[in-house]
C-alpha cells in the first residue's frame, strides 16, 4: 500500500512539473487551434443574430475562390524557390567556412549577419536594392547599359524578388546548424577515406551528406514552416501585390482577418495551412527518418 502511494506521489510530482509548460501550450497553442477549427465551421451572425453552423460550407467557398488558389500557388512556388536553394546554399557555405581558410571567423560572421538583422530592417534594405529608379540593382544594370527591371512592381518578377531576399535571409541561419554538425564529424573519417584515395566529391556523397541527414531533416522542417509563415517581408516589400502576385498564405490570412475583417475565412485558411503542414511533416518524418542515420 505504501509503495502504491509513493508511486502515486511520484506521478503527481511529475504532473506538477509538466503543468507550467502544459498550461502555456494549452493557452497559446491548443486552445487557439481548437477555436480556429471551430470558427471555420460557423458563419458569424450579423446585427446580433446568433452564429450559424454551416459545416464545411466555408471550405467549399474557399476552394471556389480563385484568389485563394493563386495565393496557394504562389506559396508553393515560394516554398520550391526558397527551401532547396537556401538549404543547398547553407550547406555550401558551411562546407566552405569549415575548411582551412584565412579570416574564417570573419567569413562565418558575414554569412550569419543577415540572420541577426530584424526582418523589417532587412526588408527595408532590400527595398533600396529593388527600388525602380534609384535602386542598387537597376543602377548597376544601368552602368552596363541594360534597362532596369521593376523588381517588385512587375507581377512576373515580383515573387522571384521576394524569394531571393528570403534565401539571402535564411541561408546563413541554416548554415549555423550545418556548421555545428560538420564540426561534430570525427576528422579521422576524412583521413581514413583519404588513405583510400577517395575523391572529395565521393567522400561528400558517401560520408558527409548521409551523416548530415539529421541536420538536413531538421532544417527542412524549419524551412517548410518558415515558408508558410511569411508576413513581415510582404508587409514592407509588396503588401502582397501587384494584383496578389506575391501574396502568400499567412499574409492572406492576415489580410482577411485584419483588413477585410473576415474572421471566418481567415480561420478556414489557417486550418488548411495547419493540415498541409501536418501532412508534410508526417511524410518527412516517416519517409526520411527511416533513411536517416542518427549517431
Amino acid at each position, binding site marked *: 500500500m505504501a509503495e502504491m502511494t509513493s508511486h502515486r506521489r511520484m506521478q503527481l510530482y511529475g504532473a506538477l512539473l509538466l503543468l507550467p509548460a502544459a498550461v502555456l501550450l494549452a493557452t497559446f497553442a491548443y486552445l487557439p487551434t481548437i477555436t480556429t477549427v471551430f470558427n471555420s465551421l460557423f458563419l458569424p451572425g450579423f446585427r446580433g443574430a446568433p452564429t450559424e453552423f454551416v459545416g464545411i460550407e466555408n471550405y467549399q467557398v474557399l476552394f471556389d475562390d480563385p484568389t485563394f488558389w493563386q495565393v496557394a500557388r504562389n506559396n508553393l512556388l515560394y516554398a520550391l524557390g526558397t527551401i532547396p536553394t537556401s538549404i543547398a546554399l547553407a550547406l555550401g557555405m558551411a562546407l566552405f567556412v569549415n575548411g582551412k581558410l584565412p579570416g574564417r571567423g570573419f567569413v562565418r560572421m558575414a554569412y550569419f549577419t543577415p540572420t541577426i538583422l530584424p526582418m523589417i530592417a532587412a526588408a527595408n534594405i532590400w527595398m533600396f536594392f529593388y527600388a525602380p529608379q534609384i535602386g542598387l540593382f537597376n543602377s548597376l544594370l544601368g552602368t552596363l547599359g541594360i534597362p532596369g527591371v521593376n523588381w517588385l512592381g512587375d507581377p512576373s518578377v515580383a515573387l522571384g524578388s521576394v524569394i531571393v531576399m528570403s534565401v539571402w535571409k535564411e541561408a546563413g541561419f541554416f548554415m549555423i546548424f550545418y556548421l555545428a554538425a560538420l564540426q561534430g564529424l570525427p576528422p*579521422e573519417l576524412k*583521413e581514413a577515406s583519404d*588513405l*583510400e*584515395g*577517395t575523391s572529395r566529391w565521393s567522400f561528400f556523397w*558517401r*560520408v558527409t551528406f548521409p*551523416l548530415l541527414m539529421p541536420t538536413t531533416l531538421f532544417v527542412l522542417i524549419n524551412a517548410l514552416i518558415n515558408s508558410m509563415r511569411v508576413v513581415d517581408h510582404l508587409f514592407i516589400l509588396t503588401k502582397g501585390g501587384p494584383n496578389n502576385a506575391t501574396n502568400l498564405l499567412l499574409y492572406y490570412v492576415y489580410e482577411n482577418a485584419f483588413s477585410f475583417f473576415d474572421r471566418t475565412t481567415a480561420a478556414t485558411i489557417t486550418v488548411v495551412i495547419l493540415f498541409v503542414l501536418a501532412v508534410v511533416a508526417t511524410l518527412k518524418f516517416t519517409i526520411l527518418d527511416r533513411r536517416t542515420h542518427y549517431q
Partner: protein
Amino acid sequence: MSDQSRIRLESVTKRWGETAAVDGISFDVTPGQFVILLGPSGCGKSTTLRMIAGLEEASDGRIHIGDRDVTRLPPGDRGLSMVFQSYALFPHLSVANNIVFGLRSRKVPKAEQRERLAKVAELVDLTDYLNRKPAQLSGGQRQRVALARSVISEHPICLMDEPLSNLDARLRSDMRREIKALQSRLSMTVIYVTHDQVEAMSMGDRVILMQHGQIVQDGSPDELYNRPASAFAASFIGSPAMNLLPLVAGEQGATVEGETSVSVAPLEAAGGQLGIRPEDIELHPASAAGVPATVLSDEYLGADTIAHVTVGGHTVRVRMSGKHALAGQPCCLSWARENAHLFDASSLRRDDLTPNTLPSAPHAVPRPPAVGSFQY
C-alpha cells in the same frame, strides 16, 4: 618479398611554429618487419606515423616507400593502409560497406569486391556481422572491422596508431596475438605506434623508442631490455621500471648516494647512475654481504611480490617470486655484475666501465627462479 614495402625516413622533421614535434629522425624499415614506435605521449611517435601516411606534411627531410619519394604525395597514392585509434569506422555504413569502402573508391569491380570481402571477413572472423552497423558491435569487433578494412586493400604496408588502447586488458592481449598472427600470415610491413611497453616488447621485431621528437634507441626488444641506451630507455622498458640510483665518489670507488659503505662501481662512474632491474636484485638477510638496506613495504601481486626497499634514502623495487612478508626488516642487496647498468651524467649508457662484483655471499635465502617481467 618485394622491395615495394621498404620504408625509409631521412632526417624527417615536423615543426609546429617554433617547436619541433619530430626532430630529424631517420630509420629504414625492411619489408615484412613489425616495427614499433614507442614512447611517452607527446614524443612525436604519432606525428611520425601520420607523416609516413601523408596525413601530415613533413616540414623537412624525405620519406621513401619502395623506390619512390613519397614526401609530397597525397595519402591515397602511397600504397598503404592505416588503423586508427578510434577505428574511424563510418557509422552509417554496415560492416560490409565499411570494409569495402576503399575498394569502391578505387573502382574495384563488384564481383571482386564480394570475393575479397568474403575472404577477409573469414580471416578476421566477422562473417556473421557483415550486415550490422558499427554501433551494434563490441569494441573488439569494431577493431576487427578496422583491421579488415586495411587488410582488404592488399597494400603491403599497414600503419597502426595505438589500435588497442580503447580495449580492456584481456581483449587487448587477445588482439595483440591476433594482429601479430595476421601480420606474419600476410607478411605485411607494419609500423605500430604505442605507448605501452608490453605491446612493444611482445609484438615488435624491432622497437624504436622515442623521446622529445628524437630516437633514443632503435633495436630488438631484447636489446632494449638488456642493453638500454639511456636512463630513459631503462626506465621506460620493464614493469616495474628499472631502479636508477645516483652514484657518488667514495674511498674505493663509486657508491650509492647516502650509502657509502659498499662501493658498487669504479670511481669514474661517480656522478652518473646505476641501473638494476627489480627482477635482477637479490634480497639477503642483513648479516650477509652486500648493500645494506631496509624493506619499507611489500606489494603482493599473486605470482610475485614487489618489495620497496630503501637504500641510502632512495627507494628500490625488488621483485621476488612467491609471497613474502618482509616489511620493516633490515636486509642487504646484491646483484650479478652483468645485470647492473651504468649511465653517465647526461644519462647515456656507458660501456667503458664495468660495475663492481659485489661480495655476494653464498645465497643465504634460497631464491626461486626469476620471473619474466612481461605478462604475455
